[in-house]
C-alpha cells in the first residue's frame, strides 16, 4: 500500500494467485471489460505463445471518489501458475495487500489447488509475510464444467473455513466482480485497521466500495455482492 497525502491518493496491490490455467488472467480480462473508460487502464499481459502467463498480467484501475478528491489506484496482478515460475511468483507477491486464490473447480484439479495454496503460504513466508494476516479470498472458478466439486461440498467446507469463498465462471464474467469486491473489502478493512485510511483521507470505506462497484457497472448493493460468498466470514482477520 502506498499513501500519497498531497495527491490524496492510495495505491493498493492485489494479486490473483492460483494453479496454472485456473483462470486468473480471465478474471482480469473480465474486470477490464466491466470497468468504465474512466477507471480502467490498459490491460498488460506478458504471455508466451501458448497463452500462458509468462511473468504476470497487470490491470491498473483508478477510481476517483468524492468528485476526484480521493483517488484509489488498484494494481491487479496475476502470477504465472506453472511450478517452474516459483521465483516470479515470489517477486510479484512482494508488497501485495491482498490475494485472491483462483481455484479450478474440477475434482481432478483438487491437488493442484492445494499445491498452489501451499506455494502461496511458502512464498508469503519467504517475503516475510504471514498468510494469517494477508487478506485472502478464494474463488472456485469453472463452475460450468463437468466433474466439478459439488456446491454442497464447497459450502460445507467454506462454512468451516476462514476465507470468503466465491463461485465463478470467469469466461462468462459470473462471480468475477463478487470475488474482486470481496477481496477489496477485506483488504480495505485490513488497511483501515493498520493505517486508519478513512480518517487520513476523510473518506468512508463503504462509500468508496459502493463507488468502485458503480464504476464496474454493477448496480447491486455492495452488501449483497459480498453476501454472495458460499461461506466464511467476510470480516478482516484480527
Amino acid at each position, binding site marked *: 500500500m*502506498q499513501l500519497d497525502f498531497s495527491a490524496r491518493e492510495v*495505491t493498493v*496491490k492485489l494479486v490473483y494467485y492460483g494453479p496454472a490455467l485456473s483462470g486468473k488472467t480471465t478474471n482480469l480480462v473480465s474486470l477490464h471489460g466491466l470497468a468504465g473508460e474512466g477507471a480502467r*487502464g*490498459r490491460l*498488460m499481459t*506478458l504471455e508466451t505463445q501458448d497463452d500462458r502467463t509468462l*511473468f*504476470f498480467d*497487470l490491470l*491498473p484501475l*483508478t477510481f476517483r471518489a468524492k468528485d476526484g478528491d480521493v*483517488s484509489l*489506484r488498484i*494494481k491487479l496482478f496475476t502470477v504465472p501458475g506453472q511450478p517452474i*515460475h*516459483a*521465483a*516470479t511468483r*515470489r*517477486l510479484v507477491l*512482494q*508488497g501485495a495487500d491482498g490475494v485472491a486464490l483462483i481455484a479450478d473447480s474440477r475434482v481432478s484439479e483438487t491437488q493442484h489447488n492445494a499445491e498452489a495454496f501451499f506455494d502461496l503460504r511458502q512464498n508469503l513466508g519467504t517475503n516475510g509475510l504471514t498468510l494469517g494476516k494477508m487478506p485472502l479470498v478464494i474463488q472456485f472458478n469453472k463452475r460450468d464444467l463437468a466433474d466439478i466439486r459439488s456446491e454442497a461440498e464447497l459450502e460445507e467446507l467454506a462454512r468451516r473455513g476462514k476465507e470468503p469463498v466465491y463461485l465463478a465462471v470467469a469466461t462468462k464474467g459470473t462471480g468475477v466482480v463478487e470475488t474482486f469486491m470481496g477481496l477489496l473489502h477485506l483488504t480495505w478493512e485490513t488497511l483501515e485497521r493498520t493505517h486508519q485510511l478513512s480518517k487520513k483521507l476523510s473518506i468512508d470505506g463503504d462509500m468508496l466500495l459502493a463507488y468502485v462497484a458503480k464504476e464496474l457497472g454493477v448496480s447491486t448493493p455492495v452488501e449483497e455482492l459480498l453476501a454472495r460468498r458460499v461461506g466464511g466470514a467476510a470480516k478482516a482477520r484480527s
Partner: protein
Amino acid sequence: MNDPAPLPPPGKLPEEPFAIAGVDGSPLRLEELVDRRALAEMITSFEHLFGVPIRVLTAAGKTLAGNETFSPLCGLVNEQPAGEHACADVLDVVKHLDFTAAPISATVPTGVHRCFTGAQYRVIPLEYDRRLIGRILLGPYLLLKKDGSAGDPPRTLAALSPELGGERARSLWTGLPSADADTIEQLGRHIATVLDVILFSGHKALLTSQMHLASVRESYRELCEKNERLEEAYERLKELDRLKSNFLATVSHELRTPLTSIMGYGEMLAEGVAGELNEEQREFVETIRTKSEQLLGLIMSLLDLSKLESGTVAVRMARLPIATVLADTITTLTPTALKKGVALEIDAAPELPPILGDAERLRQVFLNLADNALKFTPAGGKVSLVARTAFEQSEGEPGLILVAPLRQVVEVRVADTGIGIAEAERSKVFDPFYQIDQSSTREYGGAGLGLAIVKRLVEAHQGNIHVEANEPHGAVFVVQLPAARPTMHPPAAKRTLPPILG
C-alpha cells in the same frame, strides 16, 4: 583426489527489494519509457508532414525530442535583448503549462498560449497511468483564420524594438509556419495517441526486462543455496570415503600380519620341521597353504584398492613400447596356459607408437586381464592379446582432420573364448566387489577387485576400458591408451590416481 571445480560463492539476497516502476515504486518518467533518438525521428517526420514545429517535453519541462532552433523571425527577436527576454518568458510558461488552471481569457482556450509575435503555442498534456508525464508543444505557428489568411504582425512585436517593426521583420513574419485550428487539434490528438501506444510498449518492455532480471537473480540465489547444501553433503561424503579407505588399509594390514605366521608355520609343517607327515596330513597342510595364499592375494588386492582410493599410489610415466609390456605378460602366464590347455597368443607389431605409462602398473593391468581370460576359458580355448593403433571414436566431429592426430591411441584387445559377459553386466564388472553371480565366485575364485583396480590404473594413464562380445562366444576387454606424441613431454613424474568411488 580430483576435486570438482570450486562451487560459486553463495549468492546474496538482492540488496534492494524488487520494485516495479510505476507500480510499487516512484511514478514513471517519460524519459525512462521512450528511446530519445527514435522519438526525435518520429517527431521530425511529423514536422515535415504538417509544417509545424513540434516538441516533446518531460513533466519537468525538459525537451526530450523536437527542434530547438529558432525560425528566422524568432532568431531576429532573440538578437534584441528585450526580445530575448520576452521570448524566454513565453517559453517558460508554455513548457510548464498547468492544465488544471482556469483559462487566461475567454477567447483563448486552455492549452493555447499566445506569443507577443502574434504566433501561438498549443500545449497538449501527455498522461500515462492517469498521471501527467510530459507535454507536447506545438508551435510557434500563425493561426490561420477561416479565410486562410494569417492577418498582420501585432503591435506587441514592433513595440519591443524599432528593428522588429521594420520591413525585414515583416517579411520574416509572413514566413512563420501556419496552420488552422482543426489541423492543430488533429495533429495534437494524433501525436498523443501514438505516444500513448509507444509509452505502453515501453512500459511493458521495461517491466518485462525488470522482471526477467529479478527472476534470474532470484533463481541464482536459490541455486546458490542449493549448491551450498550440496557442497556440505559432498564434503561429508568425502570425509566418510576417506575414513572408509583408512579403515580398509588398517584392517588389511592387521589381517596380513597373523596370516604371514599361519603361512610360515604351514610351510614348516610341510617341510617336516616338526616331524614326518603322513599322506593325509600332507594333503591337509597343502590345503591350508593354498587357501592361505588365496587369502593373502585377496588382502593384497584390498590393500591395493584402498591405496588407489586414498590416492597414495604413484604412477611414473615414461615412454615405452606396448609390445614389451604384453610380451612380459605372456611370459608370466605361459605356464598356467599350458597347464590348462589354453592357447595364449600375442600380436603386437614393434612399429606401434610408444605410449606414455608406468611399465609396472601396465603390466599389472594386462596380467590381470589375461589371467582373468585364462580363468574363464575352458581347455582347448584361446586367449589372445592384440595391439593396434586406432583413433578415439569421433566420427563426423568438426575439425576432425586437425584434432585426430592428437587423439591417436594404442588399443589392446584381450580376447577369450570363455563364457562371455552379458551386455547388461559389461559396465558393472568394473565396480569394486561386483560379481556377475555368486556361483562364479565359487567356481573361479576372486574377490571382484581385480577389474576395479585395472580400471583405475587405465584411467590414471588417461585411457579407457570397456568390454565387448567375442564372436561366437567369449569376451573382449578393450583397453585404449593414448599414444605418446613425438613432441609430447611426459607429464609430472608423479601422478595421483582418481578414486574408485569418486
